[in-house]
């Protein structure tokens, strides 16, 4: 019995990181699209209308926070999960959560499984 899996768009300026996510999630039956630049990433969100967006925070060009604001302004129901190496004693984390992000996870991830669980949790709360 195949449970319906959420669709995902992952945007991170580290191509290897999104590649890792793509392989992991695809093998487990998720639909996942990746982008290592923000512009194409936003286009992907527009075209794919994913359930979940996995976002890096600090990226050249438009950063993750702006992406979140765009999504919120478009009133999309897409859940945003930040996965970032940016660390400033939790300040940004709480700001993102307040701004409507579903979760904020630190790089490196404790386990990629945690991310999968968070994705599923976000999807189930949709």
């Amino acid at each position, binding site marked *: 019995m195949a449970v319906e899996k959420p669709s995902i768009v992952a945007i991170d300026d580290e191509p290897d990181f999104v590649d890792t996510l793509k392989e*992991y999630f695809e093998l487990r039956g998720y639909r996942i699209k990746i982008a290592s630049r923000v512009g194409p990433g936003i286009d992907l969100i527009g075209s794919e209308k994913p359930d979940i967006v996995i976002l890096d925070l600090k990226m050249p060009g438009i950063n993750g926070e702006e992406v979140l604001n765009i999504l919120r302004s478009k009133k999309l129901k897409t859940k945003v999960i930040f996965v970032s*190496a940016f660390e400033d004693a939790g300040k940004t984390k709480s700001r993102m959560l307040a701004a409507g992000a579903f979760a904020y996870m630190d790089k490196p991830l404790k386990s990629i499984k945690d991310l999968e669980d968070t994705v599923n949790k976000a999807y189930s709360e949709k």
Partner: protein
Amino acid sequence: MNAFAGFNLLIGTTSLLFALLIIRFGNVRNILHITLLLLNIALVIWGYGCMMSALSDNPASAMFWWKIAHAGGLYTVVFFLHHVLALTENKGRRVLIFGYIMATAFQVCAAADLLQIKMTYVFDSYFYITPVGMAYPIFTFLWCAIGFYASFILFDAFRKSHGEKKVQFKVLLMALVICFLAGVSHFLTVYHTNIYPFGALLVPALPIVATYGILRHRLLDIEVIVRKTLVFAGLLASVFAALILPTLLIQEYIFRGAGFGGKMLGLAVSGVIIIASFRRIEDFLINITDRFLFQKRYDYKELLKTFTSEVLTVLDLNKLVKLTVDKLSDIIRLQSCGILLLNDEKNEYHLAASRGIKEKNVVLNVNNTLTSFLTRTKMCLSIKAHGKEYQLPEKIVLDMNRLKLELAIPLMTSQDEMIGILTLGAKKSDEEYTQDDMDILLPLAGTLAIAISNAEMFVELGKTQAEAAQREKMAVIGTLSAGINHEICNPLGIARGQCEAFLLNIKDGLYKNRTHQELVEKARKIMEKVIHETDRATTITKRLSTFAKPSKGDISNDISVKYEIDEVLALVGYEMKLDHIDVMNKIDENLPFISGDKKQLQEVFFNLIRNAAQAMNEKGRITVTAREDSGKVIMCIEDTGHGIPKDKLAQIFNPFYTTKEPGEGTGLGLFIVRQVVERNRGRISVKSKVGEGTTFVLEFPAVAKVKV
């Protein structure tokens, strides 16, 4: 020649020798030396005059010589009084003036034949005077009265004195009283007591006992050179005797039969021996006398000169105290010497430099009896001077012995703080510390205290600067952490993710359909990525740690500006990229090396580039250029930021000048940058236009062309 003439020959000769000794080694400005010299000259005149009188074969001749002798004899007692008054610092001048008037009056009387005396043949051997009226008895009485008065003053002073001074008084009292009594014995003959004037034999006691006093008890403070001269001459003479003896033996026993030729040969042999060995023996003797007898009074001038020119100007604290101890030991010839310095934090005085002190790590608490004594009294402490008077507490003596000190001088600052203690051990000559020593050592200690506090402040300043520089750097690194974190956590995230995904995929059976070959290929790719990412993280941490380490002060002559700028850009590049700042690196290839402290220069470049980035509030361009121009490497770091207004431009290199919010910056960045640049023989200047940007220009002397 009769016995009386012999006695007086002895008096004249010993007094003459003593007078010569004082002339040679004494001090013409010292009243003690002058009066003693006058006394001896008077005795010389008296002695030789009496001798000649006693040798005269007729009364007229005897009378002539006696008048001469009388001229000296009259004044002996007055000079004696004068000396005693000076020695005891007695202010009683009236008796002295009276004495001089009396002596002169009698002198005039004698010359004018008014003394009412005649010559009588006594003891069947010589002519001597006999008074015929009252004039001479009056003179006798007055002469003796002055002599007794002087002896009384000396005795009184002796009774009241203590320590070294008492011994000196005792010696002088003995000599002068014996001498005076001997003089009195002359009058026995005058008044026909028929006692032969053996007392005259005692007169040489004055020079002899006084010489003893000089040698043994530093009478008149001329002991040292005298002692050295005597000992050296004695040693030299004995060596010569030892050399000549074999010569004589050779002549007497070996070449006895050889007549004149043999004697000449013997002389030649000893001549050769003496010539060959003289120099060496002389050196040896000088060495021995210097080392063991040590009579040479140290040269105050040398001490002062050495101190003012060589020692007190030293700013390195350790060097300063070490040099002080060494120079003091060498010049004053001390058995031991040390300097204790206050450690403010631990409230302890620790031995910072020493010589001749076995225990190298002596530490005295500020509450220690010795240190608190010095702190409270602010006076020097001498083991000898105090030892005789009152017992020092056992604890103090114990510490004094540990430090082998005879004299401890507190080093006081102008704020009345005792920052250290100068400890001086016994002199190698075993002499005690005199007032002369103190007169030079105390001001010296004062100056030393100033030099030490200067050196300490210098160290403190250096430390503060280094600390400020390090704090500034750490603050800078703190703000960098966003970029750094990104550069470290991302590779780690990827490496971890790749490995974990592979393992989970296997565990979850997702690779079931893959061939073994495919899995190995997959694993290979993952491992390559992991290695790549770990390398990436390693590079950044290495860069950061080399950058964060404080400079060791090594100077290199092969600093490539291009390489260092590349390193800095690698460190800050990512953050700049995030902030949309373009960095244009326009450094000439084949630029000459510059010389300096690599870390410090990295710091300069880092600070300037980071400042440029911060001046731009995101978006902008930093251009780094470097070129060679007439033996100099000229670098420009240019930004397109908001610029610095003219009135602020002059202040930017001042310490604590900052435009940032409190807590954001220390304001030391550019201040330190300029210091570091100048320390590395460079120059820094700044140009700026509000709204257009700022350019920092650095100039360093070029070292050599890069080999292509």
